[in-house]
């Protein structure tokens, strides 16, 4: 297989076609059923935000799409290809799907530049100089060029998370999964990371974003999905979901958020 996306070869993903289609996705950890049948589709260039309380299954859903978690039932179809089918090389799938974690997970023993170039060099076989040139271009785009020789523990949380995003982007993914990427940051560092995501959205990146930043979700998402106990309760454009939620559980969740002063 040469990769799930026609976009990789033609340079532009097919517009209108579903980039991601998730069907009946179920996942449990032991006796604990975390995803109880998720159906969700996402067009190319679309940004969808997943909201919901901690433990509602947002992170697990993202990890399943990236195939970091084996799934129990259902299908995940990326650009028309069922990546949950037998015989699919998960490494090839993951190269098309970038994920950024809440806790950054940079490699602490490598400089920023090495963090970014490791996967292009070792997984794609890109020549090191070329990988470094591309990495510098990305670091420059996100204002990190002067940090390329620093080790992660010398960076602020916001810088680390931006490097983590750059590291994922260096693989030229077709889809980015962002798993509560601002939740571990000090409040004053959240904005710089959100700016990066805004720029990604503006550049047409297809994204699935789990977030607690309701204001940001409202601003950036074309659709917002509210998850509770492993199910998508409501899936609607942000203006609709935030101002006029249909489901009583969504209303209850948003009320709690408003009470906590986060919307």
């Amino acid at each position, binding site marked *: 297989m040469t990769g799930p996306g026609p976009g990789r070869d033609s340079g532009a993903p097919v517009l209108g076609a579903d980039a991601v289609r998730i069907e009946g996705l179920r996942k449990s950890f032991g006796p604990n059923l975390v995803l109880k049948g998720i159906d969700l589709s996402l067009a190319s260039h679309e940004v969808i935000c997943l909201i919901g309380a901690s433990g509602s299954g947002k992170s697990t859903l993202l*990890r399943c799409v*990236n195939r*970091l978690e084996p799934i129990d039932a259902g299908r995940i179809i990326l650009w028309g290809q069922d990546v949950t089918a037998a015989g699919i090389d998960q*490494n*090839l799938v*993951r*190269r098309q799907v*970038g*994920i950024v*974690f809440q*806790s950054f*997970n*940079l*490699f*602490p*023993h490598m400089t920023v530049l090495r963090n970014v170039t*490791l*996967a292009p060099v*070792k*997984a*794609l076989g890109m020549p090191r100089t070329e990988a470094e040139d591309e990495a510098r271009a990305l670091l420059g785009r996100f204002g990190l060029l002067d940090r390329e020789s620093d080790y992660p*523990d*010398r960076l602020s949380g916001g810088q680390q998370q931006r490097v983590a995003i750059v*590291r*994922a982007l260096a*693989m030229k993914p077709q889809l980015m999964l962002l798993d509560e990427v601002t939740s571990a940051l000090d409040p004053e560092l959240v904005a710089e990371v959100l700016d990066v995501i805004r720029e990604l959205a503006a550049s047409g990146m297809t994204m699935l974003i789990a977030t607690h930043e309701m204001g940001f979700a409202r601003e950036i998402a074309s659709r917002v999905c509210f998850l509770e106990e492993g199910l998508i309760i409501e899936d609607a454009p942000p203006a609709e979901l935030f101002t006029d939620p249909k489901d009583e559980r969504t209303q209850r969740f948003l009320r709690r958020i408003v009470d906590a002063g986060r919307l």
Partner: protein
Amino acid sequence: MDDSTHGQPADPLLVPGTPMMGVGGGQIPGSFASTGRGPRLLGGGGRGATAISTVSTLVVLGALVAIFLLAPGSAEVRHTFFDPRDMWQSFIGNPKKGYYSVGAAIWLNIRMFLVAEVLILVLALVLALIRQSVSPVLFPLRVLGVIYVDIFRGIPLLLVILAIGFGVPALGLPFVSHQALAVYGVVALVLSYSAYVSEVYRAGLNSVHQSQVAAARSLGLSQWSALRYVILPQAVRNIIPPLLNDFISLQKDTALVGVLGAIEANNAAQIYGSTVFNYSSFTVAAILFLILTIPLARFTDHLISRDRRRRLAGALS
């Protein structure tokens, strides 16, 4: 550890970052001051503390030397174990008189150590990776790994050396049964130490957080690449001090290979002793082993204290 050579007590209290730092040896606020012991404990580097530790060291050493010199059998022991002429004779050796040079024999220990060290690092890593694997296909290998580690950690090294050194030649196999004694010694050392060192590796691998694996795999790196470039470098960094510690002990344990008859330092010393009836040769062997192990021990301490500083710096940032 490093600091303990200065003979100061309570070194662990001296780590930077404790609330007592920055007071500059002056008055300590709070309950520490009222005990009157705080300032003295903190006097690291102060002239008073150095003087006290010097004096106490001299007193203790002086007492030990006095006991040694005043013991009823002192003169005899000094002659038997510390005779300068015998020490020199055993160091240079004299084949005509039937004894070997301890100074030359230590090279065999060094060579056995160097070869065994490399092989142990490799075999132990393989063992650790097998035991850490999760694939059901590898289950039989995992069981073998557990059995291996249990057996070779459980049997005294001396018995392993004897079993390999006398057993394998007795088998009468081509090639395998016709090796130098030191080769069997090295094999035994590798078998035994790999069991220990694999556990050290395992601790190191476990010390790397699972999220690092997830991050590496999420970028499309294969399991092997993730291990090779992300997990192992971090794991090994975490276990360098315990690894070096095992190697210090390996350096000494090469002496056990002497039981097979290989002319290593300890055996050469023994031969001198039973030929000349003076055991100063053992003192020579002991000094040579110290010359080998002390630099490695100091280096290990250096790495440990550097690591401690780095962790503290990391915790503060």
